[in-house]
């Protein structure tokens, strides 16, 4: 099972776990980002951290919390799990709690910087679905928990579809669905 996937010299997708210190590194990084901006870390991220608690305590083959590290700093995180679902011919990789780092949330970044984070995050999840023993899946779903996610991700899905890199991609309800070729 891949714990760290290097996409290039500056980007890594890291499985966050307490037992190897990666979670503590992630938390310290986001706490420092909050401190630099004058935001309270517990107020900022407490609710999300609470829901991923079980997954960072011990490594699970079919689920995990991952941090996207760019240039040595954690730029985003998400929770991923693989499960069999009704109406699917094979297990589905589900991505939830996609969250940008405090520095991207509380300061203004350029479109290029936001694009780099989101593209890297989507790319790394798809790469896990292709290469990881425990998380490998033909079908991938990204949760869009807010109605305000739908306009952006619907447009993104259409523009990705035009580029013909997946067998299918569409938004339905509160999810973005991808099936790999």
């Amino acid at each position, binding site marked *: 099972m891949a714990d760290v996937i290097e*996409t290039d010299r500056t980007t890594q997708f890291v499985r966050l776990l307490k037992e190897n210190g990666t979670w503590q590194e992630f938390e310290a990084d986001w706490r420092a980002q909050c401190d630099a901006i004058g935001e309270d870390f517990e107020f*900022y*991220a407490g*609710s*999300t951290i609470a829901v991923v608690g079980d997954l960072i305590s011990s490594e699970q083959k079919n689920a995990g919390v991952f941090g996207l590290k760019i240039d040595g700093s954690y730029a*985003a995180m998400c929770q991923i799990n693989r499960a069999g679902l009704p109406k699917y011919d094979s297990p589905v990789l589900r991505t939830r709690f*996609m*969250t*940008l780092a*405090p520095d*991207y*949330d*509380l300061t203004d970044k350029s*479109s290029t910087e*936001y*694009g780099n984070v*989101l*593209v890297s995050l*989507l*790319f790394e999840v*798809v*790469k896990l679905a292709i290469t990881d023993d425990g998380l490998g899946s033909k079908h991938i779903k990204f949760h*869009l*928990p*807010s109605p*305000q*996610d739908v*306009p*952006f*991700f619907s*447009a*993104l899905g259409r*523009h*990705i579809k*035009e*580029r*013909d*890199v997946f067998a299918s991609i569409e938004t339905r309800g509160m999810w973005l669905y991808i099936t790999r070729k």
Partner: protein
Amino acid sequence: MKGSEIMNEKMKDALKAAFSATIAEVGIDCFKKTSLFMSNRRENTEVKMAA
């Protein structure tokens, strides 16, 4: 370059181009309203609780 690396580059380039096209269509403000931003997620929760 290996075949898998070429595929990775092709996919990443497609995602980058799609993001740029999306921003050109809907604007960066549409992106900044998504739940990717913790501030928006917290705001939505507070609105629901207030209701």
